[in-house]
């Protein structure tokens, strides 16, 4: 299990960060518009509710089947990748993963790494580690490139720069890219990015990518992308390093098509992505292109902790489509940065505690009305609301021996627990309930006009003068 503890505590300041966005009408409108767009794209891909339901059930069973066999499959994957000439590395912590990647870079005396989109590389903060080691790490996915230019983090796992307007991007390009004049023509902006990146693909010593599915039986790394930058990163530089979490594995090639279909339709509302790469080996003798070396870094970072618990294991079913954030009324109100975690939104709330500890993330599980929209759209049926309730329980219960999660009990308050015990004592006893509610109804006029956070935007709650049971008695 990972012992790595990042200093950053996303739960701290979460309310202040959310408030800043909620109080900004421009951002509110902008997130709402973006999420509406993504929701309608997805909806258009699934016109048939029954087909969607059966595909989701299939996706869920495939993910659960593979997770059940995870230890064996990881061994099988390593054996088959090794046989294919791909070198496999294991990293328990972000530091270990960075050390492995930078070690490969140093061996090759690498100066520049071009990166395809990889949330796991964000998770380990590879760009910072590379920079500290004197290696340039350049994002080549357009959204990631924008976010990197702005010195920010992605605010969405699929659309990293969704928080930015085209005018902001235009200004950013004019300020940060050499020899570029201000233009807010989207095609022109994309062309600017392409020109910069094209040259870098040729210069780069290392290409880094993520992995969407790692197929154990064939030793194949599958990569889903739309811009062709993923293919460039994995074929143009002499060395390709792929990094992914240990959960991204499937046993069989036949498991990929249903998951791929669910992924692209749920994520961007595309029937299929523009590119789908299957990488099974480095360049073979006689082949004209492709890297001469391919590496895969498999990262744990708290995943084995989630794996060890039957219920929490379900978090590992995720295929990172982002549909849960697109449909989340909370994400829609506050955007991705407010969460303060690499992975925002509903999925971020249930996986981040395993990566960062519940102590760093304890209050985040409370940022949900449990409306169930996330669980309803999840293509692999992760019961996100149920998992949020479990996290609340883990966070607020008194610390105990052998907890299922690092940081269990971090949100424990003896006062709050006593309040709930008192509540239970009243509500489990008809006599006490009767007295308490009778007093409430008779003395409703004593109810304070300020009731904490409730009355910040609502009138105070007042019990009715007579309870239903009183009205029924009167009626006889």
């Amino acid at each position, binding site marked *: 299990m990972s012992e790595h503890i990042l200093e950053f505590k996303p739960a701290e300041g979460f309310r202040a960060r959310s408030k800043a966005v909620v109080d900004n009408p421009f951002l509110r409108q902008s997130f709402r518009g973006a999420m509406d767009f993504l929701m309608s794209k997805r909806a258009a891909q699934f016109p048939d509710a029954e087909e969607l339901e059966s595909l989701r059930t299939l996706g869920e069973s495939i993910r659960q089947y593979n997770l059940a066999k995870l230890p064996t499959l990881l061994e099988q994957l390593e054996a088959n990748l090794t046989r294919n000439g791909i070198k496999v590395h294991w990293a328990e912590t972000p530091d270990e993963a960075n050390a492995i990647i930078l070690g490969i870079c140093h061996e090759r005396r690498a100066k520049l790494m071009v990166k395809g989109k990889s949330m796991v590389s964000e998770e380990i903060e590879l760009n910072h580690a590379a920079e500290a080691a004197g290696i340039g790490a350049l994002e080549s996915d357009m959204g990631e490139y924008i976010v990197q230019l702005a010195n920010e983090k992605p605010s969405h796992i699929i659309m990293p720069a969704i928080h930015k307007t085209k005018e902001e991007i235009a200004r950013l390009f004019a300020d940060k890219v050499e020899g570029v004049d201000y233009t807010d023509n989207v095609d022109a902006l994309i062309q600017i990015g392409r020109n910069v990146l094209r040259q870098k693909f040729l210069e780069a010593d290392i290409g880094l990518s993520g992995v969407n599915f790692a197929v154990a039986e064939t030793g194949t790394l599958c990569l889903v992308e739309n811009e062709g930058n993923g293919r460039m990163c994995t074929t143009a530089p002499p060395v390709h390093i792929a990094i992914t979490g240990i959960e991204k594995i499937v046993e069989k090639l036949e498991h990929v098509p249903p998951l791929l279909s669910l992924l692209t339709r749920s994520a961007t509302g595309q029937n299929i992505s523009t590119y789908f790469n299957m990488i099974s080996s480095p360049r073979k003798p006689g082949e004209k292109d492709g890297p001469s070396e391919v590496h895969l870094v498999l990262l744990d970072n708290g995943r084995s902790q989630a794996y060890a618990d039957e219920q929490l294991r379900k978090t590992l079913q995720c295929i990172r489509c982002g549909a849960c954030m697109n449909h989340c009324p909370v994400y829609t109100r506050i955007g991705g940065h407010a969460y303060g975690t690499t992975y925002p939104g509903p999925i971020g709330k249930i996986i981040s505690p395993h990566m960062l500890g519940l102590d760093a993330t304890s209050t985040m599980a409370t940022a949900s009305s449990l409306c169930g929209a996330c669980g*309803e759209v999840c293509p692999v049926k992760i019961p996100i609301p149920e998992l949020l309730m479990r996290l609340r329980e883990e966070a607020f219960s008194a610390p105990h021996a052998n907890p299922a999660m690092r940081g269990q009990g971090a949100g424990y308050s003896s006062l709050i627990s006593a309040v709930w015990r008192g509540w239970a004592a009243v509500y489990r006893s008809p006599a006490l309930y009767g007295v308490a509610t009778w007093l409430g109804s008779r003395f409703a006029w004593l109810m304070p006009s300020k009731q904490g956070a409730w009355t910040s935007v609502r009138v105070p709650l007042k019990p009715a003068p007579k309870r239903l049971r009183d*009205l029924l008695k009167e009626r006889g």
Partner: protein
Amino acid sequence: MNHAQSSPPRPTDVYFFATCVVDQFFPGAGMDAITLIERQGIRVHFPEEQTCCGQPAYTSGFPDEARKVAAHQLTLFPNDWPVVVPSGSCAGMMKHHYPTLFAADPVRKAQAEQLSARIYELTDFLVNVLNFQPEDTGGDCTVVLHTSCSARREMGVHLTGRQLLSGLKGVKVAQQDHESECCGFGGTFSVKQPEISGAMVEDKVKALKATGAERVVSADCGCLMNILGHAAWKDEQEGRKTPSLPGEHIASFLLRRTSK
């Protein structure tokens, strides 16, 4: 998603589980629901020992406390009659979470399963068990319906409220923007994350008002407390004397529209 269960035969008697919110804050809605059912020739029994389904503790991360309160409700409905609940949220707790809550307690698990099979959300019960055909006696009016997330996603009974309203010939049901989106109540969420909850209810009330409907109706009093509470607060802020968005439980609206 769970779908409403297949219809059982028409019962002669039902239990009514009012919920703590209706008992204390919306007793009129409870009376109206009971009257509606009685007018269908069915005896309604209200076990006086009932309190709360336990959901507030359950969703807040205190399952032990929820279990204690839920365990008390398990024994209050001994006869094999349907248990009608005027709330999708509390019905969802009793129908879908009780069996999980008592999974490790063989005696109560059996009781919970026996009970959960008989739990009906009110509008589902009216439509699918009683085949209630409301005869509208009121004039023309436009209402907007808010369906709770639990009714929609947990109970799968999001169609029955609309069905009942559309059976009223003088009533036009308006369609609000982002209809299926949560109103932002979420129990303790509303006070633990007041900024986000506040933004959600603000948007919900705007969308409901934008329809121009005369009133909002809902089958869940938790949502109504939140929605009407914010609408009234906004009225106060803006110095309005008459409510800009009146609202009530769907049972009250139905009873009034069908009373001669």
